[in-house]
């Protein structure tokens, strides 16, 4: 945990940690604490007095059908995004792991979308699939699909999932490729000598050995779908039509814009914090046990 050989000084170490500690306390602990405190209070209509109400804000929030629907929707989105992006990225990584000519070029051409910002992803996909002028939308209509995500909530949700999964392909690809390359060739060769064909080798040898990476990526993707999709949703659908694409983070944002109930908004933030802490805790437990880079 610590070095044997160290410096002696009374004040210097405090001076060194001071800047970071100040930033963390002012911009992290203070707002987080305020959110927690606020979530137990109710303000009167004029903002003159506040009353301590225990868990009333939470109870009220969770009894709203709207909020409950947003929770379910967020989880459905997360799993849909994670599943589609992970499976496609795994396919590409398995292909790129083969001794092919030009494999470094493939890698370069596949990893750059990591750098595209979520709002830009939203703009790109909106443009492709805009019902009146999008190139892909035109193709869909020619095939007889009644494509209109501006009115059809399911189509809007599909659009968000596709765009969000698209952006995450490169990240997943990179980690899968690293995972695949760390599997010793001898294991795969042994399976081949035993007569296992490529498909069978993949499911019985490679996939299990890759499971720590898959689990790690699953958590990362869920966290991504929770938070980083905000920019995609905001540029593509603004949570609409009729809230069909409103996730938890988007709801915190849009409820906050409307102003109004501070306590309820704070309770929403606290619920999000709890979800992230749980996800991170799961990730850490697991990372310490299994993953070795």
């Amino acid at each position, binding site marked *: 945990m610590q*070095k044997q050989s160290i410096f002696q000084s009374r004040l210097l170490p405090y001076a060194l940690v001071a800047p970071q500690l100040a930033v963390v306390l002012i911009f992290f602990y203070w707002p987080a604490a305020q959110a927690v405190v606020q979530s137990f209070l109710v303000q009167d209509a004029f903002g003159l007095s506040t009353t301590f109400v225990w868990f009333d804000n939470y109870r009220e929030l969770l009894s709203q059908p709207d909020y409950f629907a947003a929770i379910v929707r967020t989880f459905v989105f997360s799993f849909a995004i994670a599943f589609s992006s992970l499976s496609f990225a795994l396919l590409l990584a398995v292909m*790129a792991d083969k001794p092919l000519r030009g494999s470094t070029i493939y890698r*370069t051409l596949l*990893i750059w979308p990591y750098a595209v910002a979520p709002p830009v992803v939203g*703009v790109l996909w909106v443009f492709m699939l805009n019902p009146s002028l999008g190139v892909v939308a035109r193709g869909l209509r020619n095939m007889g699909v009644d494509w209109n995500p501006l009115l059809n909530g399911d189509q809007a949700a599909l659009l968000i999932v596709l765009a969000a999964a698209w952006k995450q392909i490169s990240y997943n690809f990179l980690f899968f490729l*690293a995972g695949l390359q760390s599997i010793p060739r001898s294991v795969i060769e042994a399976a081949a000598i035993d007569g296992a064909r490529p498909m069978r080798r993949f499911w019985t040898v490679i996939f299990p050995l890759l499971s720590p990476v898959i689990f790690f990526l699953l958590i990362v993707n869920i966290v991504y779908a929770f938070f980083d999709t905000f920019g995609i949703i905001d*540029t593509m659908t603004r949570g609409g039509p009729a809230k069909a694409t409103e996730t938890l983070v988007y709801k915190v944002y849009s409820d906050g814009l409307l102003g109004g109930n501070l306590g309820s908004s704070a309770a929403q933030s606290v619920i999000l914090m709890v979800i992230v802490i749980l996800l991170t805790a799961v990730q850490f437990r697991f990372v310490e046990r299994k993953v070795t880079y």
Partner: protein
Amino acid sequence: MVEDEGIQRYLAHAILWTGIAIVAFPVYLAFVASTQDNAVIANGQMSLLPGGHFLETYYQTIFVGTSGSTREPVGTMMLNSLIMSLLIAVGKIAISIISAYAIVYFRFPFRMTIFWLIFITLMLPVEVRIYPTYKIVADLHLLDSYAGLSLPLIASATATLLFRQFFMTVPDELLEASRIDGAGPFRFFWDTLLPLSRTNMAALFVILFILGWNQYLWPLLITTRDDMQTIQIGIRKMITTTDALTEWPIVMATAVLAMLPPVFVVVVMQKLFVRGLVETEK
């Protein structure tokens, strides 16, 4: 290796190229749209090959902005994005490396308390505490300022953990040797530790620069003045108006310009990027 049949290899190439096409198509389309005439695009008659309006669209985008409003030219937005992402990257690296130095190379009361205080921030992204953070930044009169844009995003532990981990692997003999040479804590940090951390700092810089450049929700909340907008905010405001009024070539040119710096960084500094990505995630 194992079997190496021709068909399989062709299949692999085909799948990879399909993947690349899927990944590249939306971006190609954006570029093509940015070189065409708005009326043609709005009619839904857009061609899939580049048009002839490249220079005028990009000139207008960077130096003038959209015509129908008082929006800023995209050049200003890019400058704001650049300043913000540099402040986040440099600020985070600077405050993290010195606090990691204190935590690893000194023994002092509350050392572990401070370490945990910093460590916990790893868990909560700015999105979950936006409104309370907004209130604090407003109370400090930092709305519409570069400090307000970057400081709340600097408050996180990834970099500190990374440097701490790295410092733990630096052999003790180095410290003893420089102590024999008469070096104090400043000299040791500056002459020995900092040069050793160069690659780590560069990898971290690449990741933080991209993260900073791509920030969206936070700048959206705290910038109200048009001339403080980052490019990510600007692009959303361009498509706010009804479909018919959106100047798509300019929107798409802005999208291309918004992608250029971070994509350039990823492609050119690929080694550092991959290293930074793997290290900040573990």
